[in-house]
Structure formats: C-alpha cells, structure tokens
C-alpha cells in the first residue's frame, strides 16, 4: 500500500476547510457555550471564526509569496531544524487530540441515541478503516471524494437550519452574564476552533490559480456562517434548557420533530453527522501524516498511520470513556493546544515575513 499525495486545487481545499470548520462545533459545543456564556455565547464562534479568517489571510499572503514551498521548508530555512521539528511535533499532537475529541463526542452521541449496546471498539470498526483508507489514498482522492459529497452535505446542513428555524419560539435574557464569564467560556472552548491551521500543513500540496482564492475564502465564510447559525438556532430553540440537550444539530431537528409532528426528521441530521465525522477524522489523520513526515522524513509514511491509530486507540480506550471525560478533556487539556493555531503558527508566519524583509534590507 502506497501513500499517494497529489496536489489539490482551490475547490478541493475550500471544501476540505468547509467540512473541517464543522468539526467539534455542531454537537456539544453550542450547549456548553450557552451554559457558560448565556445568549452571548453566539458571539464566541463569531469571534473565533474572525481569528480563523485572519489565519487564512496570513496563509494567503505566505502562499502568494512562496507558491511552491512548504511551510516546513520555510521554517527550516529561516529558523533551523529544531524550530521546524518542534512546530510540527506540536501540530501532530494538536491534530491527534482534535481527532480524539471528535471521535468521542460522535461515538457518545450515537451510543446514546442509537447504538446503546455497542462498545467504543466495535464502533471504531466503522470508522478506522475508512479513515485510514481515505488518508492513505492521498489528498487529491480525499478532496475529490469530499467534492462529490459536498452538495449532499450542504443540503443536509441547510435543511437542518431551515427546519430548525421553525423551532425558535422564545425570548431569552440578553447580557445576563458578566464579561469575565464569557471570556472564560471562550478560553475553555478555544480548542474547538483553529482548524484552518490545516492549510499550513498542506501548503506545498495546494495549487491555486490567480483569482481562485475567492473560492477558498467564500467556502470558509459559508461554513463559518452556517456553524454560527446552528449555534443561534439551537440556543434560541432551547434557551434555558440548552444544557439538557447536548447534541445541537440533532436537537434542533428533534425539537421540530416533537412539536411539529414531522416524524423521524432528526434522522437527516444523523446522516449528516456520520458523513462529517468520517471526513473530519480522515482530514485529521492526513494532517497528522503530513506533520509526522516532516518530523521523521526518512520513515515510511505508513508508520505515521500506525502511530496515529495506536495513540488514538490508547487515548480513546483508556482516558476518555464518557461524555463527561470528553468534555473535561476538551475544557482542561485541549485549550493549551490552541496555542498552536492561534499562537505559534501565526507568530512564526509573521516572523517569516519580517525576517525576509530584514535580509532584503541587508542584501540591498
């Protein structure tokens, strides 16, 4: 089995980001945000999406300046191998942890809603082979598969939103939480964001023609707007009982199902969650593989898949067994990892611009 990595175009990158932006944000997050920040919780995703957009803009600038080089090469070239290795080790850990959180929340959701008797490991049989296969098949295959599923996924999300709007029927107390509580909630859940950092990892595999950047930006904006809308609709549908309903996109559908008598309409959202989960896990694995390759360039990339699988199984199997532990993992451990997309990567990218300028001055 060979790892195939061919270049992807603007559409494929855009769709990949579109899908990735939903990760860890459409199930448990809106409920946790409301619990901590009340109605003002709706501003938290908006704030972080603005930061993600900034990260994407930084990538755009970097890519325009160095169209053929990888982020890893640039770091190695300017700051030396230690900085490059440390940065990519951090990125490896970041993608692994995000995958663990996503898998756990998805598994717990399906166990509670449908597969009451199935263990996590039996459930993994449905995910791990497909996730591995997609990632090993390479970026382009993954991108094309996502391109194929994109209209279907977009339709599901739009359908959930349109149906969810009918569930909004109550007013809610505004500005009831002090700023400190909102800031604390935002800090606790910062790790659910920052997925755009993927673009730096696949930088050398992306080929974007002139004028195609708007496709990437539009798809990222669309995904951000849709995630914010899911949060808003969920919060306005459930308001003060939002903490009792941990699975946002499913709950907005089941609210309408229960009050509007539309049968098992919530199944639509479940199908969407399954497809999203497959792609999210595959993207995280692919990103992990690419980072691993930068850290250990001489090792066969298949070992990165093996490492990811083993580490993933260990964390999933021994440390995170239920929703409480998954949420605690997301609130207490993962926020530290958020320093990677929102701290380390932007700082290093910024320095890449600055250092070049100094060199240019020297050369002159």
């Amino acid at each position, binding site marked *: *089995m060979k790892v195939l990595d061919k270049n992807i175009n603007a559409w494929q990158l855009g769709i990949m980001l579109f899908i990735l932006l939903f990760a860890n944000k459409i199930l448990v997050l809106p409920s946790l945000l409301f619990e901590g920040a009340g109605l003002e919780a709706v501003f938290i995703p908006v704030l972080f999406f603005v930061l993600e957009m900034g990260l994407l803009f930084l990538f755009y600038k970097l890519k325009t300046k160095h169209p053929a080089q990888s982020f890893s090469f640039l770091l190695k070239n300017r700051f030396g191998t230690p900085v490059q290795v440390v940065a990519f080790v951090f990125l490896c850990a970041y993608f692994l942890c995000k995958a663990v959180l996503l898998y756990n929340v998805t598994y717990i959701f399906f166990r*509670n*809603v449908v597969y009451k*008797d199935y263990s996590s490991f*039996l459930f993994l*049989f*449905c995910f791990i*082979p*497909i996730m591995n*296969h997609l990632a090993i098949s390479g970026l382009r295959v993954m991108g094309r598969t996502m391109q194929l599923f994109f209209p279907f996924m977009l339709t599901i999300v739009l359908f959930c939103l349109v149906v969810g709007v009918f569930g909004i029927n*109550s*007013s*809610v*107390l*505004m*500005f*009831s939480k002090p700023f400190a509580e909102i800031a604390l909630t935002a800090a606790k859940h910062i790790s659910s964001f920052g997925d755009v950092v993927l673009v730096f990892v696949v930088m050398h595999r992306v080929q974007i023609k002139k004028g195609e950047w708007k496709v990437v930006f539009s798809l990222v904006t669309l995904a951000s707007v849709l995630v914010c809308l899911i949060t808003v609709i969920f919060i306005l549908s*459930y*308001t*003060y*009982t939002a903490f*009792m*309903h941990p699975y946002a996109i499913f709950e907005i559908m*089941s*609210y309408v199902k*229960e*009050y509007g008598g539309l049968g098992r309409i919530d199944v639509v959202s479940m199908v969407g969650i399954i497809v999203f989960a497959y792609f999210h896990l595959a993207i995280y694995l692919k990103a992990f593989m690419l980072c691993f390759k930068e850290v250990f360039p001489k090792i066969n990339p298949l070992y990165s898949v093996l490492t990811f699988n083993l580490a993933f199984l260990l964390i999933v199997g021994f440390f995170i067994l239920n929703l409480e532990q998954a949420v605690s993992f997301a609130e207490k451990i993962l926020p530290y990892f958020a320093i990677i997309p929102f701290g380390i990567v932007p700082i290093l990218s910024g320095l890449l611009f600055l250092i070049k300028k100094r060199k240019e001055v020297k050369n002159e």
Partner: protein
Amino acid sequence: MSEKQSKIAKKYENFMKKHYYLCAITKTPMLLVFLTIAVLFGFKALSMPSEVNRYAVVTAVGIDLSDDEDKMYEVSALVFVPIAEQGFSESYKMISSEGRSVSEAMDFIGLHLGRETGLSHIKFIVLNEDLLMDDVSKFLDYLTRNIHLSSSTKLITTDVSAKDFISAAQNLDSESSIKVSEIITYNRRYIYATDSSLETFFKGTFGPTKVGLMSKLTVKPGEGEGLSAAQTDGQTASQGGGAGGAGPKTEIVNDGETVVFKEGVSKLTLTGEQLKKVNFVRGNYKSGSIEIDHVTDKDLNDARVVFEVFGKKLNFKVKYENNVPVIYIDTSLTLRISEVENSGKSPQQNVELFVITPKTTDMIEMKVKRSMSEGLEIMRDNQLDMGDFYTMLSNNNRKEFKKFLETLEDPEDYLNHIVFKVSVKVYSK
C-alpha cells in the same frame, strides 16, 4: 533476490492465479473492511433477541409518595404490550412498584415485567399533588436524564393518586382513540394556550422568572363531565362525554386547571377562567372565546354573544417614568362571532355579514381590559411573573431595570411596582 525468495514469490503468484477472486480483496481493501464489519455486526445482531421481546414500551409514568417509610416513591407505569394478531388493537398494562428513588422503582418495574423499560414512547408523566410541595425537578430528574425521553412529553398533576390516574388512562388508551396526552394538546392549542410539557416547564423553571406551569387533571366517578372509560371483565369501553359504557366508570376531567410553580415548588392553582385572564397578557395565543352579555343593537335584543378569538397580537412598549418602568400593552384582537343567544328570536342574517357594532366593540374592549387587569393582579398578588416581564424589561434597558430593582426593598416583588397601561383594539374577522 535469493533463490528461496524467488520461489516464495512464484508460489504466491501461482496461488493468486488459482484463487483470482482474492485479487478483488487485495485490490479493494474496502471490500475487506465491509466484510469484516458485516461479520462483526451481523453476528452480534443475529444473536440478539428482537427489541419487541427485550423492551416493555412505557407510554405513561405516574409518581406518588409511598406510604412505606423505607421506600420513598411509588412509580406506576402504563406499559404497551405488543400482541401478534390479525386485527389492530392496543393492549396496555399498568405496573406499579416502590423504591427509594424513581430509578430504583423503575428497575423493579422492569423486574416485574421481565423486560427493560423503554422510555422513548412516554406520552405523559403524572405527579401526585402531594409531591408538588417540594421541588418537583428532583422527582423528574431520572426521567429528564434519559436522552430517549421526548422533551415534548406532557407533564400533568392530579389530585388523586398518580396510580389511579394511570389506571383510568389505561382504560382510555386501550380502547379509545382519544389519549390523555391529546387532551392536553387540545388544551394548549385551542382553549387555554398552556403547553404543559417537560420542555416548557423546565424552560420556565430555569428561566429568569423561575415560573413553570403544569396542567392539572382530575379523575372522578363517571358523571359525564370528562373523558370516561369503563372496565368490564377485562374488556374496556370508552367514549367522550361519558355517555355510555358498561360497568363502573371513571372520568379524566380537564377543566383547564393549571398549577403554577416557582423554583419548582407549587405556588398557586389557577382555574380555567383565571388562566384565560392571565393568558390575555401572556402572548399571542389565538385561543379561547369571549362572551358578552346584554348586547342590544338593531339586530339583537339583550343578547348573549360569544366571540371566537381568531387572532391576538400583543405589542409591548416600555418607558421609564421616575425610574419606574411603565409597560404599555397594546392588544389587537381579531374576533369572529361564533354564537348568538338572542332573547327575542334568532337574528336571521347571513353569519358572514354579521358585523360587530361599535357599541359591542366597546363592550368587548372593556371586558378584555378588565380580564387583563385581573390577570395582572393574579400575577402581582402571587409574585408570579407568568408573562416573563423580567426578560422584557431587562432586554429593553438593562441599566435602568437594574437601577429600578435596586430601589426595591424586595427585588423579587418587582411586579407590584411596575405600572401597566393597557389598550385594546377589536377587529372583526
């Protein structure tokens, strides 16, 4: 490549040629994955008994306080038992059990039935009136933690024991096409505009006003007032209005009584008429009717006219006068005449052309204003903000409202210090 290695490679090549179908697996590993999943899940599924045999479908749950000192609760469950037969009939059984917690009692119910109790089809939960003196959310905790329980499950309280209520509901649900949960749905949609579900109850209880509403239904010996069912040697008969059926009958009566909770504890029981008045200021509900007596105009002579509320729109405006909030409630009512009882003879006129005269309009406006002020009085007297004015005022001007609350001796008593100004406009449909 050594000789040994080339021999092995040749052997492998020959083997694959012989078993060419294996190539499909090596070329498409996803097929292998599919087969593994099918085998793993398939055998597990085959070895499991069918869900119908594993689960008892619980359709209603009643909670009472137990007389036994060791056991705190008595939980009764109405259980649907599927029976394979040619015709369609629903057969229900009532099982009751005691336990130190609701969870333990539910376990014992499962033990009595020999099946797991499936809660996803629960239509209503009945709480005995004795439980309401304490925070009811603790009795409901087990049920609300169950993700399978629908949040639209109706929440009912009754003055008889929940067990008796479930027993009466059993007879109804077995034979009648009208279910107890539907009575409450009708209540919400057409008459009293009160949704008595788990979701709305908790929304109110956990909201800023901490006020939740719950419908109260009673069980009486059959007098034709409510929905009745009779039990005769294992057979049931039922009808609306209680007219008919063999044997002793019990009726489930819904006359709109509603229990109002604050912080989960019962504070007040409203009659249907009182609730109607409160609902005039609660929201845009298109429900109920308005009766006006002694209407006299060119077609009517001291008549009693009943109007159906076809549409109601409330417009709230808030202003602060001397740091005191003044809420202006502009009410637009769209009415349609639904019944006329003329003291002389019946007015012979096309019902569609029957207009509401300005004099009648004034009478309606007066009546609605009076009802609204009585509704507000009920809220003020009991410090129960059923109209969620707290949210309205806070969202309107948080600073001013906070300042206003600070001026009060008891900030909880804010309703008594708010000025309400009501105006009503009536339109005919």
